[in-house]
């Protein structure tokens, strides 16, 4: 796997420093820092409520950080919000599109918003690549969950963004679609895009991510290549106590974040 393939002098695609996000005074992301280089797939892992979506929301400009700096391709998220948004492709944890519009109309709307001119025929052609060519006339609500995810990913990548933010993109997908999405993500990386994704699947993190970070209670606990993380924490007693045999990434995850269930 390739990471750190930056041209000399070009800034990281994403630089998060000391990010703090708070809702009504309650801190849910606390001093999180990490970087993503060009052509890198970065996975953000963490239990429910750990602060993954909140971290992404800050990068997307949906919430204003209480503290910290966010740079996308060297541009400050707060100072140049529209320029940053043009560089981002986003799939939210739950997507919502206008219920009155057909899939085709939704695709044309978002293409236009991201500066891509698409005729009806071009929409049909590109929808074929994601297996939605037969659903063009349907409304978003009439799609199956997996089809909705595919549409959301299609729209997130419609303008070939520098950085793709995917919030649990494979939640609810069947194994075939999941593999399809992994292939698509790797394709995008080979075209030079960088990807930040969240997932609850350790298998997925190991299969597609160049590097991962584990976050809990808003704090970034550890970060590195999946194999590095296993190596680094394999002798940690908390990890050993939950491992059955040789520690896996999941053992590291549970060891570091505890076994109790989150609300």
């Amino acid at each position, binding site marked *: 796997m390739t990471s750190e393939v930056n041209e000399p002098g070009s800034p990281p695609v994403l630089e998060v420093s000391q990010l703090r996000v708070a809702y009504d005074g309650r801190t849910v992301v606390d001093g999180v820092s990490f970087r993503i280089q060009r052509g890198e797939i970065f996975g953000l892992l963490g239990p429910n409520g750990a602060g993954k979506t909140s971290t992404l929301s800050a990068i997307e400009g*949906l919430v204003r950080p209480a503290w910290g700096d966010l740079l996308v391709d060297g541009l400050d998220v707060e100072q140049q919000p529209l320029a940053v*948004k*043009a560089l981002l492709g986003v799939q939210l944890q739950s997507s919502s599109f206008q219920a*009155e519009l057909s899939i085709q109309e939704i695709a044309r*709307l978002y293409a*236009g918003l991201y500066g891509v001119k698409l005729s009806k025929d071009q929409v049909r052609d590109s929808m074929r690549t994601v297996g939605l060519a037969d659903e063009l006339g349907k409304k978003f609500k009439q799609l199956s969950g997996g089809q909705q995810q595919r549409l959301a990913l299609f729209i997130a990548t419609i303008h070939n963004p520098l950085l793709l933010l995917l919030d649990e993109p494979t939640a609810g997908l069947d194994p075939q679609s999941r593999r399809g999405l992994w292939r698509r993500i790797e394709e995008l990386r080979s075209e030079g895009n960088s990807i930040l994704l969240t997932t609850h699947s350790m298998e997925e993190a190991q299969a597609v991510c160049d590097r991962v970070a584990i976050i809990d209670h808003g704090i970034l606990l550890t970060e590195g290549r999946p194999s590095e993380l296993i190596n680094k924490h394999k002798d940690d007693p908390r990890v050993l106590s939950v491992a059955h045999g040789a520690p896996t990434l999941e053992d590291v995850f549970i060891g570091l974040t505890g076994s109790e269930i989150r609300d």
Partner: protein
Amino acid sequence: MTNTGVNTTRPPLGLALRSLLRSDFLVLLNSKTSLFLSILLPIVILVANTVGKGQSRLGGSSLVIGLALTLGLLTSGLFGYTLALAHDRDVGVLQRLRITPAPTWMIMTSRVLVQVATNLLASVIVVIVGAIAYGLTLSPGQYLLAIAVSLLGAAVFLSIGQAVVGLVQSTSAINAISRVLMILLLLLGLLGGTGILGDTMKTIAAWSPVGALMTLFADTLNASSWSGQDTNALLACIGYVTVCATIGVRWFRWNSR
């Protein structure tokens, strides 16, 4: 589309605005309620009044047409626009739009423009149907003036609706408040204006959104010369737009949580 390397240029605003306008227009066209409220409802009122010989009761054809126009603007602004906006905020449609590079003012402006255009079209239809139904002959100048007053009316009710969405977060509360507000404004404008609730109420009614618009519409359709009452009505409308739009924009929140 995706083979030209990574895209790092800012998208053109013109294309974004055109795309928004087209989709907002399609949304409005596909939503039966808003078409009913802005066009069909006023026409039903016009026709119902010719059938029932209600002219005498409601005080003349210009008043009935004025009422139909005002009601169309009131319901589609305070109901159609307001509830659609609250709903889209609730389900996250606005959040999805907000993470695109389109400026937020553009997302809002597009919705408002499409709504206003529909209102004006509806008003033209209502005036034409009204003129035919009541045998009025209107000069081109009167048509233009009626459209101008409709524009003002659309602005008044959209601003009031925007203020409601700006101040209230929950969609069901907005739904309830809009209904109550609509009935109150109507009662105040209509009943208050008749003088049966006393002179104070009559004065208040004349300055109320519905009352002020009815005055302007009636004087336009009657071709009366400009009066002090018209000036007051115009000032009242401008006041409502300024205050409500400011509140509605200043306190508007894009997400529902």
